[in-house]
């Protein structure tokens, strides 16, 4: 049996083989137990330095990377660009090169530009982990969603998953579509026509009717309406959006009885998801958060734990 993650970086789900995804999920599963120990710390990555470089706001992702780094004994520092020299006009590459001069082993990057981590990977020595790049990919989110589904359903293969909401601005949706289809699940996408990016129907079928999307679903992934990225009028009002595309209890009942509701957070309660659904028995939203730490530990371990990754 091989460890099975042969890459130096984690830039996206799209270039990964199913076996690589499997390796990350299996490693995360083995590492989860560490979080339940009386002493939640193992010496695995002692002496490794990780820089968390966040060009966009984040609570969950950053906290979860930081906890994962601490649990594995890596030294980490987090840079939020809102309080850094980036405000003085330093370019991404200059910032990264200066950080690299301090010899980190890994840079975890969140950036508003699609492809920013790929750019760093070409110019930096460190291992690069994509923590969300523009509307492109958010690979660790897709991995933690998959880990949650696999834990609850015992498999990914053959699951029917509906992804509903702001597809246009969602890197989570893209990473999830790639991951789930690679692992044999069938995906249905649903959004208002104005929030369907061109070309996405090549990845998975699209419907404009949420009732149709959730019919018989094993899992429903809700996407946040990313109002901070919206420049035009994509829909009349939030109330109208909720009425047409919000996940309500009534709509959940169209799915399978044992349906799982996922949301990457932060939630707009009463917009894309009704409160009683977010807090209801189908919701695995908080399991997702716990699994987020395990998945990030797995990524750190797989990228920094060995020597022969190319």
């Amino acid at each position, binding site marked *: 049996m091989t460890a099975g993650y042969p890459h130096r970086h984690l830039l996206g789900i799209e270039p990964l083989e199913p076996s690589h995804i499997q390796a990350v999920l299996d490693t995360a599963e083995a590492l989860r137990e560490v979080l339940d120990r009386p*002493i939640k710390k193992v010496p695995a990555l002692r002496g490794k330095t990780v820089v968390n470089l966040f060009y966009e706001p984040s609570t969950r992702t950053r906290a979860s990377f930081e906890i994962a780094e601490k649990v*594995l004994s890596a030294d980490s520092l987090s840079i939020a660009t809102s309080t850094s020299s980036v405000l003085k006009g330093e370019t991404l590459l200059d910032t990264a090169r200066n950080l690299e001069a301090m010899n980190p082993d890994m840079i975890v990057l969140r950036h508003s530009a699609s492809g920013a981590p790929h750019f760093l990977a070409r110019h930096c020595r460190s291992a690069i982990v994509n923590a969300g790049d523009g509307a492109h990919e958010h690979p660790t989110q897709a991995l933690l969603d998959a880990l949650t589904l696999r834990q609850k359903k015992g498999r990914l293969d053959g699951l029917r998953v509906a992804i509903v909401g702001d597809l246009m601005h969602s890197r989570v949706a893209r990473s999830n579509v790639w991951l789930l289809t690679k692992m044999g699940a069938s995906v249905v996408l649903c959004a208002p026509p104005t929030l369907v990016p061109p070309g996405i129907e090549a990845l998975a079928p699209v419907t404009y009717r949420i009732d149709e999307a959730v019919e018989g679903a094993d899992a429903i992934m809700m996407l946040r309406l990313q109002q901070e990225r919206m420049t035009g009028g994509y829909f009349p009002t939030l109330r109208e959006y909720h009425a047409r595309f919000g996940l309500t209890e009534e709509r959940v009942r169209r799915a399978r009885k044992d349906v799982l509701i996922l949301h990457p957070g932060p939630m707009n309660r009463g917009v894309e998801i009704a409160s009683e659904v977010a807090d209801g028995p189908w919701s695995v939203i908080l399991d997702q958060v716990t699994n987020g730490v395990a998945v990030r530990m797995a990524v750190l371990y797989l990228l920094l734990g*060995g*020597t*022969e990754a190319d």
Partner: protein
Amino acid sequence: MPPTYRERQELMDADRLSRTLARMAHEILERHPDIRGTVLVGVRTRGVPLARRLAARLREAGGVEPPVGALDITLYRDDLTTVGPQPVLKGTDIPTSIDGRTVVLVDDVLFTGRTVRAALDELIDFGRPSRIELAVLVDRGHRELPIHADYAGKTLTTTRDETVQVLLEEDDGQDRVVLLERVAPPVRRAGPRARPKEARAAAGRRRR
């Protein structure tokens, strides 16, 4: 070119292995007549089935079966960042509190002692046992740390070019312990840890 190994000598057949475990169980029982305060913890991979078998023997001999845990010491290895491709994690499972109890650590082969060092560090992160002892099926010498076995099924002198492979029904489909010797000298001077995965798999986990 990974070095290849050939069998040099059979150290134990199934029958001998079974009798050895029975003897080890009796030695454990002799030192700990009240086995209830004892936990057996196997070091993955082959320490775990050995610990289970010892627990079953202890029940036969003493009436009580001690709890059995499994330790994956990968995250505590001193060579984790130089070991080659990331070792596959199998996870640790300690089913009961070890505070104030006697822990008998079980592994198949005792060699450099580095695995045991890692296992001790990991165990202590789970609590404060009153005592930790070490039981191994084979002690082949070459210690690099001040560690010794409290219970050894067999002690033998080996060279660095040899390796001891323990095969168990649970993992390998047969019960057998063999001494292997290296056939071709390695191209580069490689420590045991620099060897690729396949060779390590072929040689069992012995040269960790």
